[in-house]
């Protein structure tokens, strides 16, 4: 009886989102009211989705009652534990984004079509639901493509702004290269299996010739890696995520990149069968590179949203480290260790979804208040925007993996699973794993620096511009949306010993072993055996709280002994010019890692008659993305060159074009007769 009810829930979720989009498209001329209605619909949809996914994770997989017979097999929607977990993530973020959007859409009132944003938001939600629940390769690719296209439209939403169009087209190109490579992988699999249905493909896993499964693995890894922002395929991500409106950036960085992780877990473990260890090592290696370069590039950005976008690259790298570790363990038959690493990866994915969308929403509030994305034009926002500052602070603590927040717990689990490498028999693999421990630790430390830099430059010291001085706190709905996520950041960490068993259900559905009972013991979490290590996040939180309260009681200045006065200024009045900017703050780190950044800086001086007295000093520093310069730029030149040569045949006469089409057709018929 209950089962049927949840079927209905699934059907109504799809219908609600579809009708929400449809209504908003038809009535988008009405502007803000229709936007509000569609946000409300998205909110209701996400509540339904949360219920639905919790039910699936706890009980059994369900299918949508309806299906569509096509040439490529029967299309229907199917939710198992893994897809439900990602659906849960999507819905949590969507719930707060839709509440946040109520206030945020005011920013665009009268400038852009707000009704359209509501429609696109619903469509985006729908496509995300379809991506996680498709049961057929072709349906999946169609959903994937619609997700990419809708998000492209959303990136282009502020199309009249400078740079947005470039970012949008870069995104469109990269995502299509990715989709093309993925299509090749799925066609390859479907050709050997003889069916497009995911059920048949996973049933036939292991029967594929190893060369075919390796080729499919590489194609999928490249294709999905493009969407996940894996270095060196990441170039679009720091351009496109910041260009979108902030509520959309939150969705893109928080959940859309996770869709790639979802499909990787599904295809690497379920479709492509027994994993050879080099697959795992490749994923691990790319993860290490993405994590380290992602955080290093984030440290040079002055654009608040680009910083966060690079941090997404970093965090996807961390997830790849976890996924790669899981694959390596799996290849040596260490299934329970593999489950531990996968559990850590999935938990980190959930944490990242929550804190990154919180941070993007926070960045949206800040941009909303100051009308600039440049952190160095902000400063001092903690005073006019105290609530936003506290909420963003919580997100940054989680991002910097400060105990006992969610980000810390997942990083802890990841460290623990990497430390279990002693069980792997191959010495070379062990050494590579120890290097990745080092890289993970270095990334963690740099992420702290990045979080500090973001908060310090944006919220602390004096305002650097008039806009920052006149900033006001965001509307209530925006704060509510963020508060929900901030609360989750804390709860995911503090209550992790209650949450992890449910994620264990998910890994169990993928790998077939349950490790929940050995990982969680009462309040404490431990890897595999209690002897290795234990950690109790709730107790850490309690102890820290007691410590802070005691420190306050014993150590706070007695009333009357505290005085407010100016900052020590060495005799010259301080202005906002005296305080450190973000660039200055990270400059020592940039110098240390100079070989990676290769910054080009220029100092010009304008002297008066005496060379010792300078009127003005100009300092300029440029950071080029190495990959953009070394890989993408030459390719672009090559292709535009070829395209220019080809203009010879593009005479503009329709007869000639028809002739080309006919020739092509004949050629194809001859080749594939």
């Amino acid at each position: 009886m209950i089962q049927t009810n949840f079927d209905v829930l699934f059907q109504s979720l799809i219908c609600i989102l579809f009708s929400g989009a449809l209504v908003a498209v038809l009535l988008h001329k009405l502007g803000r009211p229709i936007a509000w209605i569609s946000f409300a619909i998205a909110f209701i949809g996400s509540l339904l989705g949360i219920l639905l996914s919790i039910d699936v994770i706890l009980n059994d997989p369900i299918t949508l009652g309806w299906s569509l017979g096509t040439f490529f097999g029967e299309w229907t929607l199917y939710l198992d534990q893994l897809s439900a977990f990602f659906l849960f993530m999507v819905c949590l973020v969507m719930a707060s984004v839709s509440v946040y959007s109520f206030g945020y859409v005011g920013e665009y009132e009268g400038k852009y079509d707000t009704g359209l944003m509501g429609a696109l938001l619903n469509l985006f939600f729908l496509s995300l639901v379809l991506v996680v629940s498709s049961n057929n390769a072709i349906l999946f690719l169609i959903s994937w493509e619609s997700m990419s296209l809708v998000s492209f439209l959303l990136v282009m939403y502020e199309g009249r702004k400078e740079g947005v169009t470039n970012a949008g087209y870069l995104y469109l190109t990269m995502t299509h290269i990715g989709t093309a490579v993925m299509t090749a992988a799925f066609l390859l699999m479907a050709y050997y299996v003889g069916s497009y249905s995911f059920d048949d493909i996973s049933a036939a896993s292991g029967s594929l010739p190893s060369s075919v499964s390796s080729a499919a693995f590489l194609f999928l890894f490249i294709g999905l890696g493009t969407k996940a922002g894996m270095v060196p395929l990441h170039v679009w991500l720091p351009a496109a995520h910041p260009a979108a409106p902030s509520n959309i950036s939150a969705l893109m960085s928080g959940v859309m990149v996770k869709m790639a992780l979802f499909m990787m877990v599904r295809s690497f473990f379920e479709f492509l069968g027994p994993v050879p260890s080099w697959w795992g090592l490749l994923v691990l290696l790319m993860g290490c590179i993405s994590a380290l370069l992602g955080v290093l590039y984030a440290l040079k950005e002055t654009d608040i949203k680009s910083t966060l976008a690079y941090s997404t690259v970093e965090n996807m790298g961390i997830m790849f480290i976890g996924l790669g570790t899981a694959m390596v363990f799996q290849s040596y038959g260490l299934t329970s260790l593999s489950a531990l690493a996968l559990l850590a990866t999935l938990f980190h994915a959930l944490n990242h979804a929550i804190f990154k969308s919180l941070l993007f929403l926070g960045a949206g509030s800040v941009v909303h208040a100051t009308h600039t994305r440049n952190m160095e034009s902000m400063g001092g926002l903690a005073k006019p925007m105290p609530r936003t500052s506290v909420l963003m602070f919580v997100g940054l603590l989680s991002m910097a993996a400060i105990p006992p927040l969610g980000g810390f717990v997942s990083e802890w689990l990841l460290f623990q699973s990497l430390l279990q490498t002693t069980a792997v028999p191959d010495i070379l693999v062990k050494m590579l794993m120890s290097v990745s421990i080092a890289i993970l630790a270095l990334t963690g430390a740099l992420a702290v620096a990045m979080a500090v830099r973001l908060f310090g430059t944006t919220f602390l010291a004096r305002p650097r511009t008039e806009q920052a001085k006149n900033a006001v706190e965001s509307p209530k709905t925006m704060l509510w949306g963020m508060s929900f996520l901030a609360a989750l950041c804390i709860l995911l960490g503090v209550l992790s010993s209650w949450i992890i068993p449910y994620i264990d259900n998910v890994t169990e559905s993928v790998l077939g072993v349950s490790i929940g009972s050995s990982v969680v013991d009462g309040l404490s979490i431990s890897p595999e055996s209690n002897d290795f290590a234990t950690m109790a996040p709730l107790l850490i939180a309690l102890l820290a709280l007691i410590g802070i309260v005691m420190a306050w009681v014993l150590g706070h200045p007695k009333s009357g002994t505290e005085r407010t006065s100016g900052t020590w200024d060495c005799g010259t009045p301080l202005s906002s010019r005296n305080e450190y900017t973000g660039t200055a703050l990270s400059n020592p780190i940039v110098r240390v890692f100079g070989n990676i950044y290769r910054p080009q800086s220029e100092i010009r001086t304008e002297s008066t008659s005496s060379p010792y007295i300078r009127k003005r000093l100009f300092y300029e520093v440029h950071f080029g993305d190495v990959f953009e310069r070394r890989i993408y730029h030459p390719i672009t030149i090559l292709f535009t060159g070829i395209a220019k040569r080809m203009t010879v045949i593009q005479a503009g006469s329709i007869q000639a074009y028809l002739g080309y089409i006919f020739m092509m057709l004949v050629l194809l018929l001859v080749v594939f007769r």
Partner: protein
Amino acid sequence: MVHDMIISSVFAVVQALAMLALSPLMIGVIRKIKAWFQGRKGASIVQPYYDMAKLFRKETVVSDQASWVFRVTPYVAIASVMVAALLVPFFTIYSLGFVGDLIVVIYLMTMFKFFMVLAGLDTGSAFGGMGSSRELMVSSIVEPTMLLAIFTMALITGTTNLSSISETLAISGIDLVRPALFLATAAFFISLLAENARVPFDNPSTHLELTMIHEAMVLEYSGRNLALMEAASWMKLMLYSVILSNVFFPWGIATDLTVLGMIGGIAAILVKVLFVAIAIAIIESGMAKMRLFRLPNLLTLSFTLALLAVTSYYIL
């Protein structure tokens, strides 16, 4: 089980308080030895206690530019070191190891740093920013070094719980000594100097100079706030010295509840910490502070040592 937990908790609290109480003494000893090296008589070794008492009675001045971050930082600082102290074995191997392991300890220290660096930025003075910026550079290399160094010990002993590391090493003795242990010790000692703002990374006796790191960040604190920040920093030095002593050379630590063992444990840890203090004082007397951009060389050296330590565990 419950009985063990209660014993561990009691000992953890006693040991954390003992570390807190002894940390000013360690600073006093270091200052005294440095004074001897400089041919001075030097202040009494209990002088830091007087300083602390005086700061507690003084008026607190808070900058008008400061936000809530500046005000909460002292309490978070002292709380984070105290929670970390509960997880570290001092004279016995009993601690709250089941609440958190070495990763938790290192990340609690990061929490302290996170707040302190932000507090340095908060008042909007160039000094604060300077200190914060340099601290970020130093700590971004030191933190992974420390993690790797202790991970080496974790791999050797098969646990990341600090108490269990001490226990395993102390009981099994010389069998577990490997080359990795010495590499890791060297790396950890360099990190200890860097993390606690000692020479050659920073000079703890500078005030209002352009070379400051730690002092620059706490420059705006005064009165009770400064007292808390100083206590937290002293405690941090104590904590790292204890970790160095008990994780890398735990021999002598009390592994059971006998009176004799306890007395032996107390004597052993006091001697070891005194030894660390003497080493720090000798280095500070014999070396000059390094130029800021020479620091990364030393830091990456220690990082490489730590990485070698982990790798050599697998090879050798």
